[in-house]
């Protein structure tokens, strides 16, 4: 494994990655597909990005965003449970490659938004 990736896997913090899978269309009215979640333990590096308050008629909600670096193959709309809270992978992860010309992915980075 290349140096960058091994460093990320040795350090960082432990989190639970829940990859999203879309199943068969089950809901009769909406015709939406069923959504299921996997679960595995991954290591991530986290940087706090922002925290803002949004006001709705039903009450306030805090919008908290983190940036993560990980070697796991996270995808947009996956969930990551970090320190007991669920975060949604909000943006399509960007891959950093070992070499521009070899193209092997070293790690990915994405923005998470706190769901709970």
């Amino acid at each position, binding site marked *: 494994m290349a140096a960058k990736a091994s460093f990320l896997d040795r350090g960082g913090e432990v989190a639970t990655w829940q990859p*999203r899978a*879309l199943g068969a269309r089950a809901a*009769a*009215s*909406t*015709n*939406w*597909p069923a*959504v299921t979640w996997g679960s595995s333990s991954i290591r991530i590096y986290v940087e706090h990005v922002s925290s803002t308050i949004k006001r709705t008629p039903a009450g306030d909600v805090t919008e908290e965003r983190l940036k993560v670096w990980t070697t796991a193959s996270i995808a947009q*709309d996956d969930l990551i449970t970090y320190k007991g809270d669920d975060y949604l992978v909000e943006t399509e992860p960007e891959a950093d490659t070992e070499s521009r010309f070899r193209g092997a992915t070293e790690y990915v980075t994405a923005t998470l938004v706190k769901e709970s």
Partner: protein
Amino acid sequence: MAATDPRTTIKSIVDVYLVGTPITKDDGVTPASTISLWEGGPETIKFLFDTALFDVIITFGDPRTRSSRPDQDVPTYFHMVYPIVVTTVDKYTAGVLVCTAARMQHTARLAIRAAIAGSAQSAPAGVPAYTLRIEEESSGHRWTGGIHIWESTYRATYQWI
């Protein structure tokens, strides 16, 4: 809930019509792959068009409602306007354009109009009683998220008595 929810009723009307008279591709013969959904589902546009390989996406959105009661002792009528949005993109097979987005929009327009007109009012003694018509249509296209999409919005008025 399903029996009285107007959005489900309208979607069912369109679905039944499309089973019997499907939207066709450019050749006018081959049925297009059509999906009808409630708005706000978990899938992305690119997934539906590129992975699930649908040619036409029809979504049913949330209503805007106003009530009217013109005279005393006349029941209150609720005019519920439901948006039906038809989304298409240009689709190619082996480099050949088989679904022209704008042409598919016209074919879908004929289908939506016929479906709604064919169920313009509820069955006699139906519960709830309603009349249904297309009040307004608007069309356009835009470039978003790296894809060029054509959208037509049909505002179907469901008058709930």
